[in-house]
């Protein structure tokens, strides 16, 4: 098992290196320079000094090698827009709200989705099933920013139950979390219903019934675990959609998170900031994939054995 994880981590590092390389060169294709906004006030000589100072006059391959060199030592460089503050530092101050929001939406969304899907499968072809079906279709097809606007309008402006924006305590997390979790919830509910229907129709559930096992035990001891296996697969892509979701949601609710900062760095060509945030998102995503693979092994003994083989 340890060997398997070590092997996976090596692959992760290689993947990250490839992502860093690709992002670096793509970023260099962006039009403009980090100093566009101040360019008018600066003389050519001053501009030259600035570019020199940040190494932006070097040929791109040299810049690339310098950046990778720094990266290996854990140095992500300094941000151009925030007065030379270290990128690592900036990310650290911003990661809190994003992580909080993401984790909250992910956990609540997937648990609610699984419950919704299970209930729909148990009471299939009843009004519960149809309602959950409609909710899931709405959740999947309507983008999260539409929900964000509606939530703000009704819950914050009309009924004044929750604050509409900013980040100042638990009640401020409610609306952005709901807006963010609707998609993962809908996906989980759809998957869970399909899987649960299939599992409930399987021979081993019938055998459990034939043993005289009660319905509740059949659901939770026999069916749930087997139905969860395919649902775990979607956790990876779901995390990805949550990450991109936060970019928009943080803007709408004025949450001082990473996403909001990331969007701004792209618009002002803050190269080290773009690189730093992209790498962070990549690490998160690759990490989630690893966790998903390990979860498989915990839930499904057939996979555990092959994964654990020395």
């Amino acid at each position, binding site marked *: 098992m340890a060997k398997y994880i070590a092997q996976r981590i090596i692959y992760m590092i290689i993947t990250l290196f490839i992502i860093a390389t690709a992002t670096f060169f793509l970023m260099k294709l962006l039009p403009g320079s980090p100093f566009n906004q101040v360019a008018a006030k600066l003389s050519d000589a001053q501009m030259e000094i600035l570019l020199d100072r940040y190494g932006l006059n070097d040929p791109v391959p040299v810049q690339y090698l310098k950046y990778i060199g720094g990266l290996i030592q854990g140095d992500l460089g300094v941000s151009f827009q925030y007065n030379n503050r270290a990128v690592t530092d900036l990310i650290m101050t911003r990661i809190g709200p994003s992580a909080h929001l993401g984790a909250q939406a992910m956990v609540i969304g997937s648990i609610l989705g699984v419950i919704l899907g299970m209930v729909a499968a148990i009471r299939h072809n009843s009004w519960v099933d149809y309602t959950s079906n409609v909710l899931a279709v709405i959740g999947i097809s309507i983008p999260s920013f539409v929900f964000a606007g509606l939530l703000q309008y009704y819950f914050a402006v009309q009924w004044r139950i929750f604050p509409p924006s900013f980040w100042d305590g638990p009640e401020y997390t409610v609306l952005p979390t709901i807006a963010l979790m609707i998609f993962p919830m809908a996906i989980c509910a759809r998957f869970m219903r399909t899987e649960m229907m299939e599992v409930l129709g*399987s*021979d*081993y559930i*019938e*055998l*459990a*019934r*034939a*043993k*005289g*096992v*009660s*319905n509740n*035990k059949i659901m939770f*001891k*026999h069916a749930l*675990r*087997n139905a969860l*296996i395919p649902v775990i697969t979607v956790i990876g892509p779901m995390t990805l959609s949550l990450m991109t979701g936060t970019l928009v949601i943080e803007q709408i609710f004025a949450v001082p998170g990473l996403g909001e900062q990331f969007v701004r760095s792209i618009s002002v060509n803050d190269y080290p900031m773009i690189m730093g945030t992209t790498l962070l998102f990549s690490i998160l995503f690759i990490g989630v994939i690893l966790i998903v693979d390990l979860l498989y092994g915990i*839930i*499904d*003994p*057939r996979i555990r*054995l092959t994964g654990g083989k020395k």
Partner: protein
Amino acid sequence: MENILEVKDLHVTFDTYGGTVQAVRGVNFNLKKGETLAIVGESGSGKSVTTKALMGLIPKPAGKIPKGEILFGGKDLAKLNDKQMQQIRGRDISMIFQDPMTSLNPTMKISKQIMEGLIQHQKLSKKEARTRAIELLRLVGIPEPEERINQYPHQFSGGMRQRVVIAIALACNPQILLADEPTTALDVTIQAQILELMKDIQEKTQTSIVFITHDLGVVANVADRVAVMYAGKIVEIGTVDDIFYNPKHPYTWGLLGSMPTLDNDEDQLVAIPGTPPDLMHPPKGDAFAPRNPNVMKIDLEKEPPMFQVSDTHYAATWLLHENAPKIEPPAAVKRRMQGFASDHGPTEEGEKR
């Protein structure tokens, strides 16, 4: 011998989008203590549905038992609710399924799957249940049961899995064992082993077995009595000797005629022409009439009642009516009947072993 189970005029229907399917249309039989009753018939004849009705496992709400009684231990199982049936399932009546590759829970250890019923019905402690589970695995012939019990189903071969399924079914010493084609999914050598095991266990425990199959070779091997089902009804029922040496129903002739034998030098097997009737609209008269080469006018008009052939042998065909013409079974069937007789002789075969 006393009857342990009596099924009277059992009807099972399924509501579908297309209409109501009458899967079982009035089945009568009884099961004696310690005997093996084989139910044979082609796919869709209602044999599996009949056993599911006995277990109370007809999928609801689509499936219903509109009519009929299943008398067991002074109770009518057809009238019990799900909670009451849970008490009976696994304890008094248990079931062996067709495909051992899919009938065990892949994410649960064998130990838990066997112990579950014991803890549920016999209120054993975990430790007692475990000891009993190991005993059961030994009984069904699994080597090193102390180690194997901690494994998952995927670590067992098909034959071994079916032994585990049998162990689960036997856990609470049931009075009736329903075996729904327990050997169909296994290869021939394993089939023989499983059949031997079931006969062995029956001898030790005096369990009554209802054995569903479409393999007549298996029937001759294990059964005391045979019920032939067609289109949701039992068309002929009798001892193994009655059915193999003196079949009366043209459908039974068809089944026997289409059974391959080793000692015949026939070039081809006889097939029963046509297909089984649509049970959404069951035909008037004898359901087998459209496929019967010797069909009579009355077959198309009126359903035949069960005619008694002997004390043990009944068949539902107008051929047994006193005014019916004498129609002999087809030549291929006759040859087979003689073949059975010269191979073993009816008296020996009647002993089952």
